[in-house]
């Protein structure tokens, strides 16, 4: 896979449009998914995804092949998402949200029987709740939670994408998890 991608990026770098089209095919859904979870609506997400690929095309000559292509394109997309959020509305603060959760309920006991949550039916309502919980995270936490749990990337990869040390990524993921937990615990 990495080899194929390497060949494609080399060809695209030389101006081969077919190779560039193949790169779009590989990454369009991933980038769109990231953008959609960041901004919360299809139209803006598609705009960001398009802009991402246009920037990739315009800056292919600066792409350093010693890094993974995915790291580079995720970085471009993440920055675009955060820039757009900055223009549109003020961020929410996460830092005071973290508090140790108390209180038992039966739902949490029932859920322990759940074997594979990915297989469970995801209702429209749950979709919206998850999106809402994500949108309440500050972008710097939201992007990292999306990269970790929706794009399924490793801590190291995320660290490469946002150019921050792994320890910082861990701290953000811990806080992000606590924030999501407090939003989603009564689901």
């Amino acid at each position: 896979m990495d080899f194929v991608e390497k060949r494609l990026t080399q060809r695209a770098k030389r101006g081969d449009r077919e190779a560039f089209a193949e790169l779009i095919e590989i990454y369009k859904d991933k980038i769109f998914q990231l953008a959609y979870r960041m901004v919360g609506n299809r139209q803006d997400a598609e705009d960001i995804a398009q802009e991402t690929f246009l920037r990739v095309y315009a800056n292919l000559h600066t792409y350093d092949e010693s890094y993974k292509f995915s790291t580079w394109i995720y970085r471009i997309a993440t920055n675009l998402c955060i820039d757009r959020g900055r223009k549109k509305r003020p961020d929410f603060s996460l830092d005071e949200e973290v508090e140790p959760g108390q209180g038992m309920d039966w739902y949490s006991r029932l859920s322990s029987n759940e074997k594979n949550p990915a297989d469970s039916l995801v209702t429209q309502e749950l979709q919206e709740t998850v999106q809402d919980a994500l949108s309440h995270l500050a972008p710097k936490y939201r992007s990292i939670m999306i990269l970790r749990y929706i794009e399924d990337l490793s801590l190291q990869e995320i660290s490469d994408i946002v150019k921050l040390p792994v320890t910082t990524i861990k701290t953000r993921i811990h806080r992000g998890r606590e924030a999501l937990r407090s939003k989603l615990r009564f689901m």
Partner: protein
Amino acid sequence: MECREMSVLIHEFLDGEIDELSNQKLQTHMRTCASCRQHLQELQRAIAFVQSASHIQVSPDFTARVFAQLPTPTRKKRFSSWLRNHPFLTAAAVFLFLMTGSTMANWYERDNTLQIASSNMDKLKIDRTRNVVVVPAGTTIDGDLVVRNGNVEVQGEVRGNVVAIEGKVVLASTAHVAGSAESIEAIFEWIWYEVKNIGNDLLPVFP
């Protein structure tokens, strides 16, 4: 108080980076602490919810719309990418260009004096008033005879080609030319002659 410490371990556990000792500590604690058990469960559920957020897909014409916005390749770029894609034709074109150049230069740099190239200069008779080089009857020239800016009159024998550049080759009835006799007057003939020579030089000819 212990629970606060356990919260750190719970996150290490979720990151899959907990060491064995801490893991045992956490498990032992959770057996007795319902609150920490619940804490972990809620975190796991939250992660599962986010992970199960159905993966949406971009609209089908996405790629086409990106391409519509790409800058159209300029003429220059298209030409250079064509060159890259056809390395052999490019090399051939460059070769032809340089060849033509040097051949043309040879043609234009000529002067008008009579020039003779032959291995048997002593046997040739040169008539300066008529600008004619004569191979007298009964003599034999080994190899080619090339004359520039003059005519060649062959009465004897030439064991090779006779070429007159900017002149004529006149063969007498007694003449005997082993190779070909040719007169070159126009530039295209000159180019052709040069190209033929390359061919002759490249291809080994066995007598």
